[in-house]
């Protein structure tokens, strides 16, 4: 059962590594935390050199032996070189913009190192995702595309920074655990029904986009549509003026958990997330009412959206005994 054995060895190794590596960023790699092992090509190369060496010794052929030893020397030097690519490297932060579940999360890994050594093409692995880290002027970042499947906190797996440079004979690698959970928003429902009508007396009908309720005039800016130009006013003032419409003020939308009792738990969350995005698209103010949580809003804009989605993302699951 080589597979099982390999798995157990790997688990053993992981546990050992885990004890030796600090649990949170920043992590600075010194030589005690860098592991170097030959790659498969390195093993092939070693066998090649061994064959050469035995042949050269057998024939007592010194140029052949010297060639073999020179190659071996270069290989050992490349091993040291690979390790030095990582020594002194510091992974100081990771970060990611939250995304909806199902879309890949762009994880940024920030690294820095003392200047003076070129460190290029380091590979950063996190689970199945990988990215390339190159340091320019002592700092650099790698972007990894982590797949997401469910809302809530996403604890990234350990980061593995590795390199097989310069000759591809040995891989030097080090681990960093980023104890920084990343947030994944719920996936918005696709094709959700229109927003529920707002209530209360602050209700207005929506303005015609080309309405004549001009709020004020301003100078023309690049990118303004020709239709928005107030030609008559412009002619009077001898400069291009543009009508600016008053922000249309829709009714406040109330997004209520309890109003969606017909749906399953996760579907409710997805619908609410979809509505939040819809409300943002339509630039309407919205409030979010959730059980066991203070009401959010009314409000609009990215900050409000993030606050609402965050609460939704962190809603306990159905099994956690929610109504």
């Amino acid at each position, binding site marked *: 059962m080589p597979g099982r054995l390999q798995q157990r060895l790997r688990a053993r190794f992981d546990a050992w590594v885990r004890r030796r590596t600090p649990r949170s960023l920043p992590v600075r790699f010194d030589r005690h935390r860098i592991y170097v092992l030959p790659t498969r090509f390195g093993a*092939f190369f070693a066998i090649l050199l061994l064959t050469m060496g035995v042949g050269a010794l057998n024939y007592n052929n010194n140029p052949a032996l010297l060639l073999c030893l020179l190659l071996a020397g270069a290989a050992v030097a490349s091993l040291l070189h690979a390790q030095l690519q990582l020594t002194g490297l510091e992974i100081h932060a990771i970060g990611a913009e939250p995304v909806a579940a199902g879309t890949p999360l762009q994880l940024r890994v920030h690294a820095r190192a003392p200047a003076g050594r070129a460190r290029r093409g380091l590979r950063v692995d996190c689970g199945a995702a990988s990215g390339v880290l190159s340091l320019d002027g*002592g700092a650099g970042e790698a972007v990894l595309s982590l797949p997401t499947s469910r809302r809530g906190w996403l604890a990234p797996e350990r980061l593995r920074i590795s390199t097989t440079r310069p000759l591809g004979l040995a891989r030097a690698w080090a681990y960093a655990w980023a104890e920084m959970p990343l947030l994944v928003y719920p996936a918005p429902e696709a094709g959700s029904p229109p927003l529920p009508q707002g209530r209360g007396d602050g209700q207005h009908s929506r303005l015609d986009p080309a309405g004549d309720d001009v709020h004020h005039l301003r100078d023309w800016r690049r990118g303004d549509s020709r239709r928005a130009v107030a030609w008559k006013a412009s002619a009077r003032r001898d400069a291009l003026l543009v009508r600016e419409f008053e922000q249309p003020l829709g009714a406040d939308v109330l997004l209520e958990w309890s109003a969606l009792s017909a749906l399953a738990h996760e579907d409710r969350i997805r619908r609410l997330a979809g509505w939040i995005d819809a409300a943002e698209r339509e630039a309407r103010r919205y409030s979010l009412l959730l059980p066991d949580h203070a009401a959010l809003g009314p409000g609009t804009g990215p900050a409000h959206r993030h606050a609402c989605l965050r609460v939704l993302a962190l809603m306990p699951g159905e099994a956690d005994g929610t109504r």
Partner: protein
Amino acid sequence: MARVDPQPLSPAARAWSLAAGAACLLPLLPQLPAPVAIGSVAMALAIGTLSWWRPLPGWLRMLLALALVAAVLSMFGFALGRDVACALLAVMLAFKPGELVTLRDARSLVGFALFAPFSTFLLDQGPLSLLLGLVGATLALVALLQLSEEESGDAAPIRPWRRVSTVLRLVAIGLPLALVAFWLFPRIGSPLWGVPERVLARPGLSDEMTPGEWLDLMNDDRPALRVSFFGTVPSTSQMYWRGPVLMDYDGRSWTRSRWLSDLPVPATTRGPVAWDYEVEVEPTERRTLVALELPLAVPVGARVAWDHVLQSDVPLGRVTRWRMRASPPSTFEPQLPALFRQNALRLPEGYNPRTVALARQWRREVGAENDVAVVDRAMRMIRNEFGYTLSTPLPGRHAADEFLFDWKQGFCEHFSSAFVILMRAAGIPSRVVTGYVGGDRNPIGDYWIVRNEDAHAWAEVWLDGRGWVRVDPTAAVAPERIYDTIDDRTDGGGFGGLPGVTPMLDLGDWLRRGWNDLVLGFDAARQLAILRPIGLDRTGARGLVGLFGACAVLALGWMLWLTARAERSGDPVVRAWRRLGARYARFGLAREAHEPAQQWARRVAAARPADAEALLALSARFAKWRYAPRIDADDPRPLIRDLRRYRPA
């Protein structure tokens, strides 16, 4: 976390891998039989072009590979050995571009390509092979470097020269370890498996001489031997390096009798002089060793044959060194056994009737006992009537007759062959001896070089009471050809017209000899010789391993230091500036990596007003040099000097 999908090759990486493969194959080609070499090149070109355009399908590759192996094996008659293995390697390497699709293919191509210079060295250790082999290996490492860059996903465009310099630095850093291993790694005294003789012929003395067919050796000015004398040095006219003694004549060729080789070595008495010397023999793939006159002691690894010629136990496939003692014989086999005598008088029937008739006539004239008079008569004739030339027509059936009576000119083979035929016909036991004569002294290393062109053939006649006596009819005609050094020969013409060329050539050969001495001729015995003074010998194998381990660890430490140090800023101004910043560490004011120059200077100035003026001025100069637009090419040297000189009090 291994990458599952095969990574395709970029055109640049493919080109470099192919170039590395070609460069590795190049030194091997001249060592192979011509059909194999030409076939390999043609196939490499064809397959390289074809597969660039479109990779060959698997079944076709398999079929082609099998066909190639079969072709090469049948060409060598299905005999496995070093030559066959090398030919197979060359053919397979030429075929390998056919499956160059992924990164992995490229790596395996480069890996296998590295075997080519290696096997070249097994066949030939000449300077050209060594140079080409090293170039090939370097290019292979460069290709590996590029492949690794590609694999890492950051293949920023780099100038090829930068890659080469990176590889050279890696090799240089690995050099101490390699050298330690080279000199201290335990050597194998005797090979684990057989050392087959080479199929390809190389110039060198053979056990056969056919007058007129020896010319390529005489035009080859490559060294055959290098000799250092300890103590007495013989004069050039005494430097006869005896090689194979040829007894049998079939009317066309002289050959060394094989059936005599089991006979005991006949008794001789030695002369008063003894020459003590060491000879370094260039590889010939033959077993014959040449020695001055009579070897006094048989070196280890050789034995002496019936003709007092040394035979090595193994073919001389690499540079070997032999410590010898020799002296001229005072009597050389005074008692000639009947078997030898009979053999030394035998002539084939029906050849050279005019020569035989002349010899019989002489014998009648001088009487039955007077051998010396016959020899003198022959020498007088040759001295008076003959000339030396290297351009002779091809001989017919009666070669000696044509030479003695028609052409009256030729070179050593003609002279010695005709002379021995004359002697035998006159009833004097005689034989042809081949070897080298003379040599050139290299004043730089104080040693003698004997070249292939110094190859020579002379005669030995057996005289009652004295034994075998050397007679050199060629020397009677053209002594300058035999005894003069290259300097004498080229005086006024050739290289002699250009002053300084001869010392250059001497220096070149001296370097070559140093390389031979340090590298090519290094073996278990020599390793022992350098280890003995520090108290280690063969019995102390554990000590050797320990010493090797200790030195390897030291070399590794040195490598580590070199590697860590190697990558610092290449700009001397920046380096000087950094060192200046580091000098403030003891005041707790060292410059932080992120701190701009001026800002740091102001921080120091605030803390240490005494330094303020000088430091602010220096930092301003540094900032200006580093960041201001460069209009004229400033000389940075004064700035570097000032930065280096500055010391905070």
